[in-house]
């Protein structure tokens, strides 16, 4: 479809090796930093990972962490009038899904991804927080979070520890 071409491209491949033909798989996407493009990218990713037969809990984790990472790029790295491209790589390894997300937006504040603290929820209804949950969820669900500013690019890496037996079987 024409619209798909505008929003990004996707390929999925299994790298065949003699010893363990199903151990590695790779997914790569490029798409615009817009909320609807993020939604569509998540659909593509989950369908692209379909051959891994992830369980429901792992699928939820993958979709949630990637959604939070990409929403942050849309809202903060490409804040305001800025717009740009988000590049996402996912490699299936024996340790889980290794993810790299690259954008050309503003750097992380203070040069590091936010810590993402738990909110104090013992407040009155009108004072309940409506945001600020994203980094807490990412840090809770992803491992080995790494960030690097490379020229004009942000590069975020992390590991999603999905059931490894599936990836190595």
């Amino acid at each position, binding site marked *: 479809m024409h619209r798909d071409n505008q929003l990004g491209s996707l390929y999925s491949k299994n790298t065949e090796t003699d010893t363990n033909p199903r151990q590695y798989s790779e997914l790569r996407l490029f798409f615009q930093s817009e909320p609807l493009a*993020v*939604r569509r990218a998540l659909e593509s990713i989950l369908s692209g990972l379909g051959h891994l037969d992830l369980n429901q809990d792992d699928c939820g984790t993958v979709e949630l962490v990637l959604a939070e990472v990409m929403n942050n790029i*849309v809202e903060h790295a490409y804040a305001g009038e800025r717009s740009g491209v988000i590049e996402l790589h996912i490699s299936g390894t024996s340790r889980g899904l290794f993810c790299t997300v690259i954008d050309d937006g503003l750097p992380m504040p203070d040069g590091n991804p936010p810590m993402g603290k738990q909110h104090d929820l013992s407040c009155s209804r009108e004072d309940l927080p409506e945001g600020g949950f994203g980094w807490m969820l990412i840090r809770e669900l992803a491992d080995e979070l790494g960030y690097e500013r490379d020229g004009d690019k942000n590069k975020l890496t992390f590991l999603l520890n999905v059931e490894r037996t599936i990836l190595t079987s």
Partner: protein
Amino acid sequence: MELQTETHGETLVITASGARIDAAGAIDFKDKMRKLTEFGPDKIELNLASVEFIDSSGLGAVVASMKQLPMGKTLCLLDLTPTVAKVFRLTRMDSVFEIRTSNATDGDTRVNAS
């Protein structure tokens, strides 16, 4: 995201029929909830059985839906799916909302009618 409403006695039941409440749909969801809850019964139930995915923006919209209720109204969440329940648990929002499973016998009065 379509939201359907039914009134059961003193309770307004709002049923979400879409599969996700995410950053792309959060504002629309919050606006629709405000229109549906502005008037009518004080007791409001939001059935999320069809919602398979929620992100932190969607969670924020559900929180906003409660905060924007007129004084004296309450919001209860029904039938969270596993991924949605996980987001409420990790953010501890499950301690703020009343969360229940809907009563399977609701509307099933024919069983005893014979």
